């Protein structure tokens, strides 16, 4: 275990400790000049610090200022790097060129997405699961849909999240006013149920401990731990939701990365249609992070306590607060779901998963305990006794590799860092080498 000790050794904790951990978005000193009389939204004031990824970007900039010639390898944000299949881009090109002809020109499309795409998602992604095209709402991405779902649900309910989890769940909850005050001592919001997911419980929460939430955000394969919930675990979750009358918001953005027989959709679990909404995306599935396309499935059977179908209110939100995803992106999405396109995007996924195993092997060979990487493009590395941000900073300082500190995903992520497998093969190999070299240096 001495091999890992380098990561608990820190040169200068104060310097390495990022400012965002202490900085609050409270106004430090009133500005001179005209202030309106509009009070700041108190929910915005409750937000603890800058959003995780922009914050990491800030560190990257600072690092670059310090080492202008450093060849930084970004294994942080989880951004896709591989070109889109030609088949997909050429259908977008065709669509775009059509827009400058009177025959091919299209104005406003339906807010819920083009019929053909909704149908293709239902047929390809939810084959045999009985999802109807009308239950599929096309959007400009999962993150945007999460906020729209929060708008839908409103401020008066209690949410539960996996701890650690993707920060947008909690942040959007705070913004909409569900979260209550932040309790510094425990690093949690008062009215949010944090369901700890660690290796001790096979990354699944101990549901007996969770008090009844109204909304359960559940991400599988999980970002950041990389764990895909097993069928049995998801059955437990659906059962828990049913007993408690809760609604699960299931984030399956990484389901295409599942290699074993873990469920790819919550709707594989019997009874899930009555308790769950699923949010998903083309971002990681087809490299659409910049093109922007995702979807949400709201089953008709999902009802509020007064029996009113959730799907109708969600549709209203989509029509009022959104105006449809870009029709060009939708044309690309449709191409991804054709047999040929599907094969092509699948090969991109395999590429990233090969990256993941390279990273898992490299990190394990250093004697580190490594999770994830099997059903998800994320590797979750344990540094017992170390602060995540310190590990992050040290890796950045010494190897010019950007990772993500686990504590950025919630208190349950402390002592971990997340390494993303999105990257070009050369960079991944180079990163592995640098990590090995860092260790070698420390040993000698």
């Amino acid at each position, binding site marked *: 275990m001495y091999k890992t000790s380098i990561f608990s050794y820190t040169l200068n904790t104060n310097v390495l400790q990022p400012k965002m951990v202490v900085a609050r978005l409270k106004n430090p000193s009133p*500005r001179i000049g005209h202030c309106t*009389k509009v009070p700041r939204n108190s929910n915005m004031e409750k937000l603890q610090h800058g959003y995780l990824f922009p914050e990491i970007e800030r560190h990257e900039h600072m690092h670059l200022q310090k080492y202008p010639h450093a060849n930084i390898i970004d294994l942080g944000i989880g951004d896709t790097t591989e070109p889109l299949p030609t088949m*997909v881009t050429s259908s977008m090109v065709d669509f775009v060129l059509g827009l400058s002809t009177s025959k091919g020109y299209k*104005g406003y499309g339906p807010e819920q997405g083009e019929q053909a795409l909704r149908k293709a998602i239902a047929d390809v992604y939810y084959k045999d699961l009985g999802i109807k095209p009308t239950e599929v709402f096309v959007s400009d991405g999962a993150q945007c849909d999460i906020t729209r779902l929060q708008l839908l649900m409103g401020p008066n309910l209690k949410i539960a999240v996996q701890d650690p989890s993707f920060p947008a769940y909690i942040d959007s909850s705070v913004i909409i006013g569900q979260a209550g005050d932040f309790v510094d001592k425990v690093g949690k919001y008062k009215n949010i149920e944090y369901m700890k997911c660690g290796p001790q419980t096979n990354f699944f929460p101990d549901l007996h401990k969770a008090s009844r939430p109204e909304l359960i955000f559940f991400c599988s394969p999980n970002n950041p731990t990389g764990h895909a919930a097993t069928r049995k675990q998801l059955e437990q979750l659906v059962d828990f939701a049913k007993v408690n009358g809760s609604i699960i918001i299931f984030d399956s953005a990484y389901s295409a990365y599942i290699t074993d027989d873990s469920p790819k959709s919550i709707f594989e679990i019997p009874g899930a249609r009555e308790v769950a909404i699923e949010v998903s995306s083309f971002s990681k599935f087809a490299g659409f992070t910049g093109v922007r396309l995702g979807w949400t499935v709201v089953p008709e059977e999902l009802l509020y*306590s007064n029996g009113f179908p959730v799907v109708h209110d969600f549709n209203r939100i989509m029509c009022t607060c959104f105006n449809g995803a870009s029709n060009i992106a939708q044309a690309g999405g449709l191409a991804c779901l054709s047999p040929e396109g599907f094969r092509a995007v699948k090969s991109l996924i395999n590429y990233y998963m090969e990256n993941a195993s390279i990273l898992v092997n490299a990190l394990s060979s250093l004697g580190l305990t490594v999770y994830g990487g099997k059903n998800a493009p994320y590797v979750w590395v344990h540094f017992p006794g170390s602060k995540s941000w310190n590990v992050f900073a040290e890796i950045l300082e010494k190897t010019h590799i950007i990772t993500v500190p686990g504590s950025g995903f919630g208190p349950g992520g402390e002592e971990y860092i997340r390494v993303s497998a999105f990257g070009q093969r050369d960079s991944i190999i180079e990163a592995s080498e640098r990590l090995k070299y860092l260790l070698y240096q420390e040993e000698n």
Partner: protein
Amino acid sequence: MAEAPFSVFSDDQPVTSNYENSSLYVLEWLLRRIGLPDKIIVKDVCLAKYSPRLLHWVVTQNWLPSNSVIEKNPAFFNTRDIVILKIISGFPILTKEKLREQVIFDTHLGDWIVAFGNWEFDPLKLSNPFGHNISKVHVWQGYEVKVVPSQIQRFVSRNIGLVPHLCFVVLDQRIFTSVVISAPFSPQAPKMSITQSLSTPLSSSSSTFLAPSTFNPRSQVTLPVKSLGVCKCIAAPQEADTAYKTKVSRNGNIAKLQAGYLFPEIARRRNAHLLKYPDAKVISLGIGDTTEPIPDAITSAMSKRSHALSTVEGYSGYGAEQGEKPLRSAIASTFYRDLGIEDDDIFVSDGAKCDISRLQIVFGSKIKMAVQDPSYPAYVDSSVIMGQTGYYQKDVEKFANIEYMRCNPENGFFPDLSSISRPDIIFFCSPNNPTGAAATREQLTQLVKFAKDNGSIIIYDSAYAMYISGDNPRSIFEIPGAKEVALEVSSFSKYAGFTGVRLGWTVIPKQLLFSDGFPVAKDFNRIVCTCFNGASNISQAGGLACLSPDGLKAMQDVIGFYKENTNIIVETFDSLGFKVYGGKDAPYVWVHFPGRNSWDVFAEILEKTHVVTTPGSGFGPGGEGFVRVSAFGHRENVLEACRRFKELYK
């Protein structure tokens, strides 16, 4: 309520001379055929008091039918219906092939979205229309008819203590209607026997339920499959009582939203019209959707970017949430040159409507907003969703806790600010949708002063600014001091035909501060990073091309084209002696019909000229007496529409 062996009656249509032609007759005939017991009251959905409102409620839910009601099956008539519809004359647009066409489908979709009757209806406030079990049968909305999802029926019927039992479709004269017969639930109810007795006689019957205006129960068309299909709902009633419900309560703010929405209602009227005049060449100058192709200079940039995404050098993943730097910089220098707006004050988005919601999230639920009356409906709706408003007050057609600022010709389409109580947020759209009025420099200076005196924030919607002809300000930031009280929302939609491509922006100056001195831009930035992930990079490439010298010229050409349309429309109404507003600085012409009801004028124009417009009252009570004519359309359509206007009002 009358009680008779077969008491068939109507609330809004005399059951007299054309009784034999009415669907009531069909119902009565049907019920005799299937031998239902005595003491039945049949209420025809399209005619009776409660059911049409139910139907209306269901189909007017803007959020409801467009995704779950009709789109359950793009052909919302089942196969048998289509067979029938094909062999009867008068419905050429209902062939299966036709229904697959987006336009036809949308037309019908719109038709169903807004059905009949009043605009407000709360199913929870309904009581059992039959009360005290005096009747066993109630006509209800359909299940297999693919019009109303079973859950909605169950939800509604449960709340008034009825269980849907069977349903069928009646095509009354020119109106499609669906009905279900429901009865109070009782274990002994002869459910199955109704099913059987209905299906048997019908399959051998020769009566028609899908006849056009000359309805004749003894014609050759049959509807057995439809009836068999709809009978399936009989198997479902118990489910209505046992359907699993979560314990999550519905968001009260969304429940406050008003059911009816302007554009679906217009679509419905247009479709009813199409059915009445199947051969009419209907011209739509209603909804403001762009029709002209995007200039090549712009699409070629987008196709280049799309293609580049398949190359190693050209691929890019997540971009900055606030938009790509070159685009932000191009927007700042093109639209805000010399106005002191910096690149990082610009936030690129997927459109103005989406940004309006995000701004509402920034400001939260505890603020009071003011809005021009008439105005674009999204301001008010997003405010309701955020919980800023009280309930809708039917008598004044306004939501409580929103300040409606009347804008009419008397005040030069600028509100009398001295009569406005202090709002936190002022939505102000100029050039205005729908009135087409662009506020003058003097007016905007007043507005900025008003905001400053009251400590309010102006959300200035300049989505039509490039249509301004004269020297009225194109941005609120042309007014000195505006940077301390205003932010601006804008869009490429109406400039470059980007309504489907999706691209817009919001400008928030650093000088705009909350009461505690915290910059609004910082909170908006946080919202953009947390609740949004950037506009599509392909759209952004298109936006950048729009702002190149070639692109700007191309956009000006498109705008010039629509402006010529506008002139043609303005001149036409002018020459006919109407008071015409707007049109000079906006692609909308606001025509005054003093003393008349907007919807009546709308109907008159549609009936006599086959031209679809928009009734002004749909934009708020202040729009009564006006009709909005949109200039978005192909030239030949605009010319033809104007020729017909001249014919009508000569």
